[in-house]
């Protein structure tokens, strides 16, 4: 399972995950109160500039991650233009771009293990028992392991469908697909139990 963490090393990779996440929360909260097109544009420019120490290839990677946001931004802008509230629309759009680009920067430069560590430490500080924390860690590992496995099994189902009919595979495949997931869950539970189970 590939995470979104960038393999291009940047200075931010060395920063500890906890403060990075805290900083991001503060930033996201602050820009929500940001007003005025000039200020909003300056903040967006600053966030974009923050990608540059990672190099051009890294910046391009960040821009690619923003692609799905752009059509939504376009819809919002067209709507505001249509009702004649251009300034308001520009602020909303810039605020969104700044928040998402900043969050993506944290995602791109923080390893999954470090994120998980922050969560484990946070939960420990909140007094969550070690048993619960271990269960959480195991569930995370199971999802990461089984997502590609299920995707592959789904692919086999589609092939089996195509071998039998020229019709396009549709919702009918969801039932056998869910059955595969349920059976895998049962087998994995048996295997866990056979190895001493969860304590």
């Amino acid at each position, binding site marked *: 399972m*590939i*995470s*979104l*963490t960038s393999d291009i090393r940047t200075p931010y990779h060395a920063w500890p995950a906890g403060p990075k*996440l805290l900083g991001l929360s503060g930033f*996201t909260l602050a820009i929500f109160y940001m007003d005025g097109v000039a200020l909003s544009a300056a903040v967006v420019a600053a966030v974009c500039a923050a990608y540059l120490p990672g190099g051009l290839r890294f910046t391009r990677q960040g821009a690619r*991650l923003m692609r*799905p*946001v752009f059509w*939504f931004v376009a*819809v*919002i802008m067209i709507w505001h233009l249509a009702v004649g509230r251009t300034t*308001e629309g520009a602020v*909303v759009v810039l605020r*969104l771009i700044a*928040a*998402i*680009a*900043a*969050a*993506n920067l*944290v*995602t*791109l430069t*923080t390893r*999954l293990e470090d*994120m*998980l560590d922050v*969560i484990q430490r946070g939960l420990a500080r909140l007094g969550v028992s070690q048993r619960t924390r271990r*269960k959480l860690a*195991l*569930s*995370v590992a*199971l*999802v*990461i392991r*089984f*997502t590609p*496995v*299920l*995707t592959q099994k*789904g692919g086999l189902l589609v092939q089996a469908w195509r071998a039998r009919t020229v019709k396009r595979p549709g*919702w009918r495949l*969801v*039932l056998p*697909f*869910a*059955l595969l*997931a*349920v059976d*895998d*869950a*049962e087998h*994995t*539970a*048996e295997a*866990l*139990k056979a190895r001493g*189970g*969860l304590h």
Partner: protein
Amino acid sequence: MERNLTLIALFAALIAALGLVPKFTLMSGVPISAQSLGIMLCGTVLGAKRGGLAVLLFLGLVALGLPLLAGGRGGIGVFSGVTMGYLIGFPVAAFVTGALAQMWRDRGGFVFPAVAALIGGVVVLNVLGIVGMAIKLDKTLAEAALLATPFIPGDILKCVLAGLITQGLLKARPGLAQA
């Protein structure tokens, strides 16, 4: 206990895997994204608690930076976007769907799980999603609701599918509903 944990994890993986399925379009031209169908199924099949936890686990992994949302999206950034209300609403929707589906489990058939999915996965989810959009876009609730309306017919069809699939699953694996 092991079974509950693996079912929660596997349904979280199922939501992720369904996100990779290309959108299929019904004859009416309404596009159906399989991922939200996965959210409904978590509730109708696993019930309130396990279904809600499966969706929370899925969202947790998305926040950690795994590209599990439809279209390969992920990272904390998606929680800052316009659809933030929908993402927060996912576990709530699965929980409400599950609570209703559990309550009506004895009645069998596909209608009751479909109605549970309609109330939890469409009504509750859209209320939270629309509130989220209104906050993010500085709009009134009515204006935000306008943006959500094109998806409602597809959502209703998804409820029927969720009902049919749940009925089939529970018939094939009757022990599934027991925690």
